[in-house]
């Protein structure tokens, strides 16, 4: 509520929750966050006019006043449906409707609870009744955020926008209602809070082990009345036309979740006070949950609760499907990712540098030097590549003790008569030919002699005579 006594835009949107569709409410809150209050009020007013929604007198008067304040083209006083006092809440909520899993929503809310909404209490319930003229599918999730004190770190608009965005990005859009410490509870929110469950307990989040401190005991533990620990709140002015006193305020006794006991116990004091990041599960909490809040904001929050800080939830890790022997690979991987393309043989592991040198391979391929390179696997040296082949120097003969030393070069002796050649013919041969001929004769000589001795006719195995093989040379 501002200085003039008119309700703020945020309070107006809280007042019309459940009377317009949830998408419009989310859109209007986003517009307020970016500073377009006028457009937000105009859209909400136009929707209320178009659908002829009957508002309680105080809410209708507040809408008319806000519409005038933003200079809307709509004459809300005339266009809005006549006021009608609200009798009860026409909406029904269910904390755990059948067939609905809240796991994704709670998972998306846990990081928010650790950062933006640190110190706040988050509640989740599901609305079973349609809201607005064009409602979305049901049940519809409703997240209720209770600010910790009169001066929260984030305003209700900004916090609602950030929580909504987090849920949108997680693919689980939901309505987000941020309730300030001094906000009055409308019937919609009273009924929603009556059935809501803490985010830690909503959905399929496993309960902590009995040996651990319960994460949230919203209403079970009786505590001291709120006036003993909270500073006195200044009196709040109500919106124009507010009936005053007909709507319970947050300080008073609040309805408690069904089935959880704690009647007539103020819910604010009964709920666990989130002690910063310790409330969020460790698995979902970012590394620096408190970094987004300035130190003074941290100090402005309620001091350490007399109750011990709730321990973080330790979710049991799901059984690993590959536990036991199956976690080992059944066969070695076909592709070894550790193979170095530059050293496929793993020469570097035995002290030999890779074959690749500073010269690119394509140059080696073009010049043909790749075929001349010799890698010494033992001393690790490779000859420097040479662009042009040059005559190699005579290699020094290495001593080979196991082999006999090479005989000195001598003129080979050729048995010309044995070969059927004349001496002058042999003399015409070159030295190489004579050497080859002498070697051939040395190898074939004993066998030829055996054949001559064993075969008198001198016929060879192929039927030819020697005379035919070695015809006399002419001339």
């Amino acid at each position, binding site marked *: 509520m501002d200085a003039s006594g008119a309700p703020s835009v945020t309070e107006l949107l809280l007042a019309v929750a459940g009377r317009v569709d949830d*998408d419009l409410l989310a859109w209007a809150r986003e517009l307020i966050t970016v500073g377009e209050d006028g457009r937000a009020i105009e859209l909400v007013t136009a929707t209320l006019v178009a659908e002829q929604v009957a508002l309680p007198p105080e809410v209708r008067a507040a809408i008319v006043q806000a519409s005038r304040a933003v200079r809307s*083209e709509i004459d809300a006083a005339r266009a809005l449906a006549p006021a009608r006092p609200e009798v009860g809440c026409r909406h029904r909520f269910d904390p755990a409707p059948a067939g609905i899993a809240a796991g994704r929503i709670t998972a998306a809310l846990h990081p928010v609870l650790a950062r933006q909404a640190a110190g706040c209490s988050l509640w989740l319930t599901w609305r079973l009744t349609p809201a607005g003229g064009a409602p*979305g599918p049901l049940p519809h999730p409703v997240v209720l955020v209770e600010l910790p004190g009169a001066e929260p770190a984030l305003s209700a608009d900004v916090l609602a926008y950030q929580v909504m965005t987090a849920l949108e990005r997680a693919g689980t859009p939901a309505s987000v209602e941020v309730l300030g410490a001094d906000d009055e509870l409308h019937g919609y929110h009273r009924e929603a809070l009556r059935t809501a469950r803490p985010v830690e307990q909503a959905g399929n989040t496993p309960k902590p082990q009995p040996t651990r401190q319960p994460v949230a005991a919203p209403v079970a533990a009786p505590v001291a009345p709120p006036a003993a620990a909270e500073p006195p709140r200044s009196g709040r002015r109500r919106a124009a036309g507010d009936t005053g006193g007909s709507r319970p305020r947050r300080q008073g006794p609040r309805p408690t979740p069904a089935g959880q006991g704690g009647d007539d116990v103020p819910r604010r004091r009964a709920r666990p006070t989130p002690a910063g990041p310790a409330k969020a599960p460790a698995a979902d909490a970012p590394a620096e949950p408190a970094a987004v809040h300035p130190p003074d904001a941290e100090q402005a929050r309620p001091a350490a609760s007399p109750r011990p800080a709730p321990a973080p939830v330790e979710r049991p890790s799901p059984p690993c499907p590959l536990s036991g022997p199956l976690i080992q690979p059944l066969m070695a991987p076909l592709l070894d990712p550790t193979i170095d393309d530059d050293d496929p043989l793993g020469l570097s592991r035995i002290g030999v540098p890779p074959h690749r040198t500073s010269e690119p391979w394509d140059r080696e391929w073009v010049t043909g030097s790749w075929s001349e390179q010799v890698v010494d696997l033992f001393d690790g040296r490779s000859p420097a590549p040479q662009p042009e082949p040059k005559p190699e120097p005579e290699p020094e003969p290495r001593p080979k003790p196991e082999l006999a030393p090479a005989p000195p070069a001598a003129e080979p002796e050729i048995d010309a008569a044995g070969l059927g050649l004349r001496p002058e013919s042999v003399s015409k041969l070159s030295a190489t030919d004579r050497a080859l001929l002498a070697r051939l004769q040395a190898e074939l000589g004993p066998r030829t002699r055996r054949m001559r001795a064993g075969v008198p006719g001198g016929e060879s195995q192929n039927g030819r005579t020697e005379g035919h093989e070695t015809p006399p040379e002419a001339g």
Partner: protein
Amino acid sequence: MDIASPDRACHELLVALAGRLPDELLWRLRDWLASGGRVALAAVVPRELLRHRVALTDEERSSMAASLGAWGAAPRLLDAVLPAYVLPAPPAFGPDPDDTDVTALTALAVVRGDPGCTELRLARRADGRRVVLVQGAERPWALTGVLQRVLRAHGERSPNVEVLPADVEPPAYHRAVIAATLPVWTREPIGVAS
């Protein structure tokens, strides 16, 4: 253009604004028209046209004057709407692969119940949004509202429902839908079938 009533003129204007105003706003404006929220439309539509700098052709401006002007829109705002000489190119469309899901069958059931409807098409816009196009209806703005609420109940947060009056040339946006799809359901117009 035959402007029989301000409601029809406003419907034709909102049909022509498909693809030129944000979906989350356009479906709401059409819902207001189906609900009879003429005052709301007269106040919001001119401002949104100016806010998004949507220019109108002469024909569209005539529809705006015949509807919003008649419902009390501020002449200053109506005059400020930009004139259009070239309309933006429509987006790309393709057939809807989910043309037999529950939402489509529910929409078909609603369309068949309107005696003026002659055709139903389902398309997917390039951004993945489903587009329901109906040709012919006795009160197209009312059918638009019904179909939008059906789609929203099935999870379409910003339904794209285009109901073309029988005697109106489809705008470029809707011609693109027609060119990209085949009818899911057709019926001979009343008076044509023997």
